[in-house]
């Protein structure tokens, strides 16, 4: 059978444009984001979430199990709700106790499994899991909202919508571990399974199931207080997500998984290129884009945060979005190739506006782009081609790492930062080279500097020398040489900025990755960590049963998908 040719597409945006940190830090979720991909799959499979165990006491503590079948496999979320003193409730990775801890279990746990997990899972990093556990995580209550919701429900009413809008979740995760950590299954266990083979699908599934637990827990707690307690209504549930506090751990991931990052970005950029190739969109598609522009406007109004830098950017974004709304009328969109024209027009505005528009244009075209989700995983195995000549490697380096060779590493500002791993819970951190101890233990996230150093060596090496010979004399270049070879055919392989320079804003890296997860309403608490909300506006388990669709991009509270 002949393979169906891919749809026509425009030229992809250039990596020198896309892979700059300032633009990556302006990322928005798209329909290819991992939460969206998971929920589409659950919806297509008509997956039914089941509450198998509810051993939660009057005090709200105990254990519960939920399960769902995805891709022919049953997965169970095992949750332990435990008492936590207010003074111990911390978002830090270095915390040692939490309100809730959970695992995604492969299959249906026996009572013996539950007893074993109850002894280990609440200890998190200090406990040991087995390969039957796919994800290990924990969450803390939002004290303000959690208590308010229980009080309101116990009084027979719904919670204050303003407080819901401000906070947006009942619990927030502070770490979600996968891939072999602390004894859980390596990714290879699920990497070929339908439904979980894509990036972070197991983690996304665990968090979505956890969201259902939070709804049940507040209903249970309210019911203990009053026989007349209300339950959260469906719209309110949908508007509650799961919060998350994310720190620098995400930054090393981006540098250490370049082939994976290439595939994510390549999928998104291909989607945009396919959309931009459409000459005459249907009237319905134009109407949908106009509706999404309105929705994005409402979402931006709701996105209120404390961080002054992002607040100032969002103020500009809101202003530019209003400008865009003035220009982009139905009539304007009836010109040939309107989406390409719109992307071109957006170059007059800032990066936030450009990236919001790029994410928006992909949204109406599921039939055209959703197949790209299958291309977002990566085989990350690679080995050096030692027969390559030094001259060939130098050519590759000069071709693909020009951005790195332009950095002047004799300037101390270009090496202002250093990445390291703290001895405390092995938390990745960023230090100031001249002010903080530990630079001699620097993590190798300085890709531009490594590329520049290799370039110096190659320039002094006869071009016909094999890499086997170069590596014998210079094993310190082995990692970067392999990296340059591996990424030769992957344009979005590298963050094309100096990740140790003085102008680095690490939260840009976090937002990029979190947007691919599908998070929105980024709420930076410093330049090094951010809060976000996952699954806000997303279908609940009951919504999926009722056939609610996939239309929850940039949700607006109170609006029904």
């Amino acid at each position, binding site marked *: 059978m002949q393979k169906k040719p891919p749809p026509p597409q425009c030229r992809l945006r250039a990596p020198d444009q896309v892979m700059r940190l300032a633009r990556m830090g302006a990322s928005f979720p798209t329909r290819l984001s991992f939460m969206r991909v998971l929920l589409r799959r659950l919806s297509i499979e008509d997956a039914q979430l089941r509450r198998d165990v509810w051993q939660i006491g009057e005090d709200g503590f105990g254990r519960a199990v939920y399960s769902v079948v995805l891709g022919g496999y049953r997965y169970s979320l095992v949750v332990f709700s435990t008492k936590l003193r207010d003074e111990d409730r911390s978002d830090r990775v*270095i915390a040692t106790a939490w309100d809730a801890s959970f695992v995604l279990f492969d299959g249906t746990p026996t009572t013996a499994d539950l007893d074993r997990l109850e002894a280990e899972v609440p200890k998190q990093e200090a406990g040991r899991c087995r390969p039957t556990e796919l994800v290990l995580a924990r969450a803390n209550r939002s004290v303000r909202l959690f208590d308010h919701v229980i009080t309101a429900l116990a009084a027979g009413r719904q919670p204050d919508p303003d407080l819901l809008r401000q906070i947006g979740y009942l619990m927030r995760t502070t770490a979600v571990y996968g891939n072999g950590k602390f004894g859980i299954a390596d990714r290879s266990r699920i990497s070929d399974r339908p439904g979980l083979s894509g990036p972070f699908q197991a983690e996304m599934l665990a968090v979505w199931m956890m969201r259902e637990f939070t709804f049940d827990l507040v209903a249970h707690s309210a019911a203990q207080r009053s026989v007349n307690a209300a339950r959260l209504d469906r719209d309110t549930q949908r508007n509650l997500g799961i919060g998350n506090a994310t720190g620098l751990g995400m930054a090393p991931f981006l540098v250490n998984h370049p082939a994976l990052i290439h595939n994510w970005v390549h999928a998104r950029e291909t989607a945009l290129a396919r959309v931009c190739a459409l000459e005459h969109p249907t009237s319905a598609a134009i109407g949908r884009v106009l509706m999404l522009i309105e929705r994005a406007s409402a979402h931006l109004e709701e996105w209120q945060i404390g961080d002054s830098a992002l607040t100032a950017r969002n103020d500009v974004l809101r202003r530019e979005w209003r400008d865009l709304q003035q220009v982009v009328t139905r009539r304007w969109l009836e010109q040939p190739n309107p989406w390409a024209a719109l992307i071109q027009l957006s170059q007059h505005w800032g990066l936030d506006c450009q990236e919001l528009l790029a994410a928006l244009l992909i949204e109406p075209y599921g039939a055209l782009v959703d197949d790209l989700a299958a291309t977002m995983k990566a085989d990350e195995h690679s080995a050096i081609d030692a027969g390559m000549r030094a001259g060939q490697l130098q050519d590759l380096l000069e071709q693909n790492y020009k951005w790195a060779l332009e950095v002047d590493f004799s300037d101390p500002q270009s090496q202002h930062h250093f990445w390291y791993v703290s001895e405390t819970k092995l938390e990745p951190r960023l230090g100031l080279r001249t002010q903080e101890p530990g630079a001699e233990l620097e993590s190798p996230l300085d890709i531009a500097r490594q590329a520049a150093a290799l370039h110096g060596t190659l320039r002094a090496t006869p071009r016909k020398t094999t890499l086997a010979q170069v590596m014998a004399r210079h094993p310190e270049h082995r990692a970067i040489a392999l990296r340059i070879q591996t990424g030769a055919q992957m344009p979005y392989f590298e963050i094309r900025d100096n990740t140790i320079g003085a102008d680095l804003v690490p939260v840009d890296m976090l937002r990029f990755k979190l947007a691919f997860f599908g998070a929105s309403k980024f709420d930076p608490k410093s330049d090094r960590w951010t809060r976000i909300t996952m699954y806000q506006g997303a279908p609940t388990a009951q919504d999926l049963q009722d056939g609610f669709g996939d239309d929850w991009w940039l949700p607006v509270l109170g609006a029904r998908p």
Partner: protein
Amino acid sequence: MRRSINETEAATRKAAVGAGLPFGTAAELGKACAWLAGFNVDVLTEFLHALDAAATPDHLTAPEAQEGVIAFGHVNVAQHGCNLLDYFLSAPPTAAAQVAGVDSPNLLIGLAGHRAGVGGAAIALAFSNGFTAQVAKGTLRTNGKRPTAGVGVRLTRANRGDFDAASVASSETCTISAPNWTGVQRLAARTYVPESEESRRKGAGAGENS
């Protein structure tokens, strides 16, 4: 104790960095240990000895190639195992590599397994004590008594037929001795920066309790 394949890889990679090896070399050693862990082979005793021997960095003596055989002297596998394979795998497929002695023969099998797995090659290792190993992507076939430090080895390209009775990597965890794991963790800990108030103040979640 049992450790996941990923835990084995991460810990051994960090230990190799802690022992002073370059990041690229350390990464391949981690993959070699992980490759063997997929067959539930614990190579950490050799690995730790090899890291000890690598405490004094040196360069691999340029091999001599004569009549299709690349000849090496004694090789510290932690430092030079990757480079030994560089020379062997970049030579014509008919070439052999003859090594007078290796300090960590089983670690070398892991390195060869990792490289074969990625490059699609199949490699045969014939040790001077009579032990043989053939490695290819996800498969390992061995015969004879496991070699010990100092043994010589000859590397050649293997035939697919050599893998008829091969083991397939299927272990999800590796059984590791507690003292070896402690040794690996001790070396890995050399790469961690001690806590300081400044660094603690800037981490995720700092200053923000609900």
